[in-house]
């Protein structure tokens, strides 16, 4: 027990003392640029999100992908908004009447929330294992 907790403390503090090692994950704020014309890669996991007057419909609410799979999220909304993939810190502005495409490689294991910022509504869980 003590060893486990010692580890908790050490690992947490270790980060603070480390040299600022650039995290292998994407930098803090990446704007997935809207590029409606590029077609998804054949291996990409596609998730579509439609928002009509605040009502969200998602193709899946639990998206499971293997590690290092490309995830492609296509969002259409009738209102301006922002989509945020937690952990990966992928953020992208959603413009009304336009398909916003967010694409990234799922290279961090864990369960991450994907949400829009209006009302902090959760769109789906991205489960990378």
């Amino acid at each position: 027990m003590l060893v486990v907790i010692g580890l908790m403390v050490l690992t947490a503090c270790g980060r603070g003392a480390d040299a600022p090692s650039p995290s292998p994950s994407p930098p803090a704020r990446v704007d997935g640029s809207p590029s409606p014309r590029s077609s998804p890669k054949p291996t990409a996991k596609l998730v579509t999100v439609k928002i009509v007057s605040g009502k969200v419909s998602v193709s899946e609410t639990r998206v499971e992908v293997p590690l290092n799979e490309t995830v492609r999220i296509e969002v259409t909304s009738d209102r301006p908004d922002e989509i945020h993939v937690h952990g990966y810190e992928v953020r992208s502005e959603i413009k009304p009447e336009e398909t916003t495409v967010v694409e990234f490689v799922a290279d961090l294991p864990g369960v991450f929330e994907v949400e829009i910022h209006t009302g902090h509504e959760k769109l789906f869980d991205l489960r990378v294992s």
Partner: protein
Amino acid sequence: MILAHGIGGRSDLPIPLWMALTGATAALLISFLVLGAWWRNSRFKGSEAGRPLPRSLQRAADSKVTLWTLKLIGLLLLAAMLGIAAAGPNDSAINPVPTWFYVWFWVGIVPISILFGPIYKKINPVRTICGFIYRFVSADEEPREVPAGWGYKPAAAGLIAFLMLELVFDRSDLPLVVGGFIGIYVLANAVMGLRFGERWCDRGDGFEVYARMMAQLSIFGRRSDGRLVIRNPLDGLAAMKTDTAFVQILVVVIGSAAFDGLTRTEIWQSLIAGRPRSIYLLLGTLGLAASILFISTTYRTAVELSERFTDKRELAGRFVHSLIPIAVGYTIAHYFSLFVFQGQAGFILGSDPFGRGADLFGTADWAINYRLVSVSAIALVQVGAIVLGHVLGVISAHDRAVELFPEPYKTRSQYSLLAVMVVYTAVGIALLVGT
């Protein structure tokens, strides 16, 4: 944990089934081993045990300078939290206060207390404020005793208020909400300090009581003769004062941890999906209440059965210490990854507390390193903590039973409590599989 946006945006994958089964089997086997018993007479001496630390060290630890330094640190940290919560941006992705409060304070208080013993009592700004208020404001000649009949209910109520905020309320991550909660919490306790002085915190301040409970598992403690000692954590547990009222705290802590686990499961997630806010809050409240009630009922039933087997009464308080390691196991299982990952955000956001481009620690532009601990290491820690907590709990309970009961009852008296512990452990592991 349902802390949206900025806090806890990452959660753990389910643990592998083989690991769950191995853990559960190990817990069960060790339980029977302990029951069948290596020892028939109590081994733990509680507050009589321990090797004294050098007197010079004790003098330093007990000195006025140390005492006031710790109090000052506590007050400064509280002031910083309130100030940054109020003046910083009201967004937990920029403002460090929610991360400091939920991750550094609420989760961090566990390893701090287990590593250093009951140190939080010395830092606790609520205690300091209660002392000040009594000294400088109260007209009473002497602080009154907190009525014995209140038990630990005030502390339990404070903890429940916090847990409602953390686990049920859907805007719990907002810095203004966190600051408001802390402000009201401190104020409510300060009012009680007016009558009861510092003593109020012994049974009134939920956070201090929680920290003290965790500190029973520390290698540092105080012997009955007042010496600061290093001791076996199992002696530390046995040293806990027999107190039936303390059950109120343990059932809240274990019950809420179980509810926390429940909210992460697929079943709960699909239950709340798409519900209106009022229903969501109602389900959360009911779920939390039901979880606490479940733990409370099972523990009390087990103790009553045990009382029926023997001629002893008032056993609930005599075995309550054996639930502490189980509570710690649950806590580590649920918060380990949050502490390791979101804990980093405390440095990152804290470097620029007001979101104005400052960089106090040079860490402002770091990103959380999610590769610090692997998924399998997390799963191992989760199962390991629950199983180890179970084992320590069973050992503590066995030792207390052989101490209390004469021979024909030594084993028999343990059946019901052991069964309950196995249930808690099985539930804990099942919740980790079901996420």
